[in-house]
Each structure stands twice: as structure tokens, then as C-alpha cells.
């Protein structure tokens, strides 16, 4: 019943070795073969165990499918299996000798924008699938637009099902050229296009013998070699305070430290720092952790920082450098992606979570909606509100200042979520302009 045989085992040695971590999203419409592609990546990297395979075969037969339905690997919930749809972003893990991978698999149909924004918010690489027979679809362009919106740094377009179009070079070239043309309107620097057949494995793990005209790399090679060095922001030092630490124990009686994660930039002992929003300045006395003292810290390190002066600092404040400060402001321009079935209501108050800060906001101006298919702007009105899966531009005013950067400059200090003050559900995602 299985279409697969393990042709090229790239299993990890098991012995621990230092590796880079790549988090990526897989994006595609229902029949683009996304599950088959993930299944193949997992299977050929030895990440599907025999008992999982057996359970999968059993479940495939139960669901009336006459082939191995790899979607059932990720569709773990009963409701998903019954309805044959994927409800939620699923996470999958595999590794090769070179890298460790976390896949955020974004489902193809319902609530697409919501799931895609959620699944891509934590990654820097996206793999978009298209069906070679159908070429670029409206939704492919939507996927590319959303990838650009959340600042995906590396994009791989997989033109799948090449086996069904006789591996034709001209078809692939057309799709590729059309895609590049569309991308010129967007903001993604690193793009690769790969012709594949997920079902037969062409150009997924190993090079295809059927497309000698293709001189590029395989998908796995691309994922293993995407250059991650330039991804983190090492310029703008931002250290939001997560917790104030005062152990008051015998060993650390006078210790007063600030726990947090360096969200960007580099923090070094001896650095001059400014505390936001108060504006007081001091110097970094030490950077400590359970594992000992450090000379410097950078993203995504979680450390304790202590400073020379006794200042009033609490959760939600931020350490920055004197000549490179985050914006301190109560008026913030945002692109929002609405995640809830109840539409965005400009007359309501919302809660906002931004870095380690929680504030309230009013809507000052509801600007426009973006039609994600045409990229045209639409006026927001009572009849045409920002609904679930819509992207809109709004201006908010917060009750206390946000310490922020633009999302484009600094993802970690430019993102926020909106929370319903009564149900406490997460209902919106915001990207600061």
C-alpha cells in the first residue's frame, strides 16, 4: 500500500552534535500534495516509526482511502479525521546530520489566513507548493503576499507533480518567471524555485533523473543550506524585562537582577544602557545564568542582567542603548490580521500583549482593508468590517506607551496580539508599521 521505500536514508547519527535549527512552514492548497511532501521528508529522514506507519495504514483503510493517506499523520484530532480536514497548525520534527528542523504545517482550506499567519509567525523560511498542472493560482499569490507581510526571509517555491506534466521544462520556467514577476511587488529577498514530484521523490531528497535540464538543488539541500547568519537582528539592542529577581537568600542576599530574553542586538557587560520608558541610564554590571557568568548575550538567550544603579524597574520595561532606543509611544500604526469570528469593532476597547507588556487600547482610526487576492485597498465601514482572516490597517491609542520598533526592522519588538477583554481569547495579530 505504501508508495514509499526508503531510498536514501539520511538518518541522524543519534550521538549529539551541534547543529543549527531551522524552523519552516509548509504552505499550499488542498490538493497540492503538501502532506505527501511532508510525509516523504519525514519518511526518508527516518522520522516515521514502524508503529506510526502501521497506525497510518490502519487509519488510511478506515478512512476509505486506497492509498497511504499521509495527512492522517498530522491530522491527529478526531474531528479532523472525521471531516477529512486539517483544523489547526501542526508541528512536525525531523533532523539530518546537518540541521534540526521544526515544521509548522499550515492547513489548506478553512481559516486560511489565520492559520498561515499563526504558522509563519515563528519561522523565517516558508515552503510554498503549487501544482504544476494548474500553475500559479490566486491563492499562491495570497500565500506569497502573507509570507512577505510576516517578513519571511527565505522562500522556496516547490512546483509539484512534475511527473504529471512530463517533466516539462517550459512549464516550470513559465511558473517560475510569473512568480518572480509577482514577487517584485513584495518584500522577500531570498527565493528559490524547485521542480519536484513529492509522490515519486524527484528533487526532494535526491536529484531527479527525469529532469536533466534542472541544474539547481534539491529541496532538502536547500533547507539544509539556507543561510541563517544574517537573519537575527544584531544591531538594535532590546532587552524587555520579564521578571525582577530578588532571591533574598543567604548566598544572594543583595542580588537584584532582571530576567529576560535578548530580543535583538547584543548586550555586553560594561555597556551603557537606558531604561525605557523612564529614561534613566546605568551600566550593565553583570550578565548571569544558572550556567555561570557571561560576557555578552544575544537573541534568543534568556539571561539575568544586573545594573550598577538601583533604579525602579519592573516587568514590561526595556533596556536599550543610549544612541539606539525603541520608540516610546501611545499612538501606534498597525497592520492587523483578524483571527476571530466576531469582526473587529473600532468602537471597542481591546487588550494588547506586546513584548512583556500588557496594555489597553482604543481604536483611533480604522483605515483600510487589503484584499489579499488583488492587493487592492477597500474602505472599512459598518457594512464592510475587518472580519476573520482579513488584513487591515488601523491606528490605535494605548493607555500606557508601547516600547516598540517597526515589525520590518525588528520582528520581536514589532509584533503584538490583541485580546478580548471579556473572553480573554486571542483575537487579532498586529504588525507595527
Amino acid at each position, binding site marked *: 500500500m505504501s508508495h514509499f521505500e526508503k531510498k536514501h536514508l539520511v538518518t541522524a547519527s543519534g*550521538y549529539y552534535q551541534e547543529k543549527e535549527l531551522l524552523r519552516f512552514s509548509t504552505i499550499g492548497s488542498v490538493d497540492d500534495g503538501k502532506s505527501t511532501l511532508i510525509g516523504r521528508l519525514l519518511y526518508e529522514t527516518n522520522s516515521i516509526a514502524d508503529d506510526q506507519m502501521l497506525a497510518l495504514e490502519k487509519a488510511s483503510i478506515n478512512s476509505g482511502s486506497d492509498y497511504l493517506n499521509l495527512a492522517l499523520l498530522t491530522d491527529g484530532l*478526531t474531528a479532523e479525521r472525521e471531516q477529512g480536514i486539517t483544523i489547526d497548525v501542526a508541528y512536525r520534527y525531523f533532523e539530518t546530520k546537518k540541521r534540526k528542523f521544526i515544521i509548522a504545517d499550515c492547513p489548506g482550506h478553512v481559516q486560511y489566513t489565520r492559520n498561515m499567519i*499563526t504558522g509563519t509567525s515563528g519561522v523565517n523560511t516558508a515552503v510554498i507548493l503549487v501544482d504544476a498542472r494548474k500553475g500559479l493560482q490566486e491563492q499562491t499569490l495570497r500565500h506569497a503576499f502573507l509570507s512577505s507581510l510576516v517578513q519571511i526571509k527565505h522562500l522556496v517555491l516547490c512546483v509539484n507533480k512534475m511527473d504529471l506534466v512530463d517533466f516539462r521544462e517550459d512549464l516550470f520556467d513559465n511558473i517560475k518567471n510569473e512568480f518572480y514577476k509577482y514577487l517584485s511587488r513584495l518584500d522577500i529577498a531570498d527565493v528559490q524555485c524547485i521542480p519536484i514530484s513529492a509522490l515519486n521523490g524527484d528533487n526532494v531528497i535526491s536529484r531527479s533523473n527525469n529532469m536533466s535540464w534542472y541544474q539547481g538543488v534539491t529541496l532538502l539541500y536547500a533547507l539544509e543550506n539556507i543561510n541563517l547568519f544574517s537573519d537575527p537582528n544584531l544591531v538594535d539592542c532590546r532587552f524587555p524585562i520579564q521578571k525582577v529577581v530578588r532571591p533574598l537568600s543567604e548566598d544572594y542576599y543583595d542580588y537584584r537582577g532582571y530576567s529576560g530574553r535578548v530580543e535583538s542586538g547584543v548586550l555586553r557587560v560594561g555597556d551603557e544602557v537606558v531604561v525605557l520608558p523612564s529614561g534613566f541610564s546605568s551600566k550593565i554590571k553583570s550578565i548571569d545564568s544558572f550556567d555561570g557568568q557571561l560576557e555578552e548575550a544575544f537573541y534568543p538567550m*534568556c539571561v539575568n542582567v544586573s545594573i550598577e544603579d538601583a533604579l525602579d524597574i519592573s516587568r514590561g520595561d526595556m533596556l536599550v542603548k543610549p544612541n539606539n532606543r525603541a520608540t516610546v509611544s501611545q499612538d501606534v500604526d498597525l497592520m492587523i490580521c483578524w483571527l476571530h469570528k466576531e469582526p473587529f469593532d473600532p468602537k471597542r476597547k481591546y487588550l494588547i500583549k506586546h513584548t512583556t507588556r500588557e496594555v489597553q487600547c482604543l481604536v483611533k482610526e480604522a483605515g483600510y482593508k487589503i484584499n489579499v487576492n488583488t492587493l487592492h485597498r477597500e474602505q472599512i465601514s459598518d457594512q464592510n468590517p475587518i472580519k476573520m482572516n482579513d488584513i487591515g490597517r488601523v491606528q490605535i491609542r494605548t493607555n500606557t506607551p508601547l516600547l516598540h520598533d517597526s515589525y520590518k526592522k525588528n520582528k520581536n519588538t514589532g509584533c503584538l496580539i490583541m485580546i478580548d477583554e471579556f473572553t480573554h481569547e*486571542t483575537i487579532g495579530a498586529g504588525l507595527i508599521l
Partner: protein
Amino acid sequence: MAVNYQIDYLKQLEYESIYIIREALSQFTKTALLFSGGKDSITVLHLLRKAFWPAKVNIPLLHIDTGHNFPETIEFRDRIVEKLGLTLIVKKVQDTINAGKAREEKGLNPSRNAIQSITLLDAIQELDLDACFGGARRDEEKSRAKERFFSHRDEFGQWDPKNQRPELWNLLNGRKNKGENFRIFPLSNWTELDVWNYIKSENIEVPSLYYAHERNVFNMNGVLYAVGEFMQPTANCLVENKKVRFRTIGDMSCTGAVLSEADNNDRVIEEIASSTITERGTRVDDQKSDASMEERKKQGYF
């Protein structure tokens, strides 16, 4: 000083977990660690120590005691609590049964795996906990693949998998209404192999059951059970002395052993890397039906 600014993946996972733990400690007022004495909750405990440092871990460990434990697990639990000066709260499933709130399964070697959720939910209410840390991982089981770091439970302690809050970037929303609570899963993105590599690199002590040892076992329905007070072979089962280890540690009545020669961390890691079955493959409680984990989780299971 770092030569470049890339961090190894295991360290990245560690930082992610510490960040999640510190967010939970900041957002919730009364928390506890659900501690089973298994490797995952031991790893969370280690990460809690890092998150609290230089302060001591000041939240209690909560053990839901089915009474069907391996003696080695209890011995380990008590020793680590003593060594680190922690507070341990034990809630017994037997007390829940005695109070008439749960009924023992019928038949030989009854499992208390499902009814322990009742004891757990009672404990959460009684101790007024608004969040519990747990060691569940997304790679363990398919219904866990969609778990959140901050997993919301309604006032009945139930999980609604179809209605979970989206988690974007690293912004964790722990807001809730009265009576609701959260489970916090800092190891969500870790795999079994990651946990073992971490145990090795951090030199974390785990119960001896995880390493190959000789023990009396019997084969029933394809599962290799250890002979013990709560697990007796039926008349036609042959008891044999074999070299085994346990990949997961649950109750004696639902945890199977694997034949193994892996008596140290390196060999365990090697064994897992080349294993062709998942760790939950040794758990009888997961194999009752295709959705048994999801069903139990909805009822408030770990």
C-alpha cells in the same frame, strides 16, 4: 566571547523553554509542576531551576499517585525532593476511589490511568492552582501535536482542541476567567531524542528504570510487563528474567519494557536513534483506540 551569533539547536530549545516558564511564572499566581518521576517532568524540573536561578524553585511538585508506581520511581522522587529542598504534594487516586468519586476498573490488574484525571482536577481545585507545568511533548502522540505552550482548560478542567487560542510569535496569552486554568508545556518542541541528548549534556539524573537492568517480566498480549505488587501474571504466562529498560515510566499496569542492552546515556541515545517504534508504542493506555489520548486529554488528563 562567541565567535558567531548562531546558537546550537539544543540550547535554543532550552532558551525557548526557560522563556515559556518565566512567562508562566509572571502571568500566573499559583503554579505547580506535575511531577511523575519520568524523564520529561525531570527535565522540566531542571529547566525550572534555570528559570528561577539564583532563587530556588519555590513552586511545589504535584504527584498524582495511582498507587501502581514502580518502587524505583517513588524512591527517586523522594530523593530529588530532599536533595533540592523542594515541596512535594502527593494526591492519591485511592482516596478518590474511597470517596466514591471514581470507580476501579474491573478484572485482573486494573489500570488507574484514566481515573487519575479525577484526582488531578480535584487537586487543582483544592490547591487553587491557576497553572500546572507538565512535560508533554508534541512529538509524543498525534493529538498532542496541536497542543499550545499555554493550554487553556475551562472550569470543568476540559481541553477543547477545536477551539484553541492561536499562539503567535512568542506572545503567550495566559488571561482567563475565574475557575479556568492552564497547563503549561515548556517541552512542546522537544523530541524524545532531544530530551535524552539534554539529559546527557546536562548530566541530569533519572530513575534507574530507564537503563538496561535484569528483571522478572512476562509477556501478555505482546507487552512485556514487569512483575510487581500490582502486576501479576495470569496462570499461563511464563515469567522470565530478561535484560530490559523502560522508555516511558507510567503505572506498572500500563507500561511495557523493551529488551535492551543500553545501560548508559550514550547507548540509550544510540538505541532510540535506531529504534523503529515510538516511545508511546510501549504504552498500553494509548492503544485502546485511535483517539484514546485525545479522549483522556479532553477529560483533563496530563
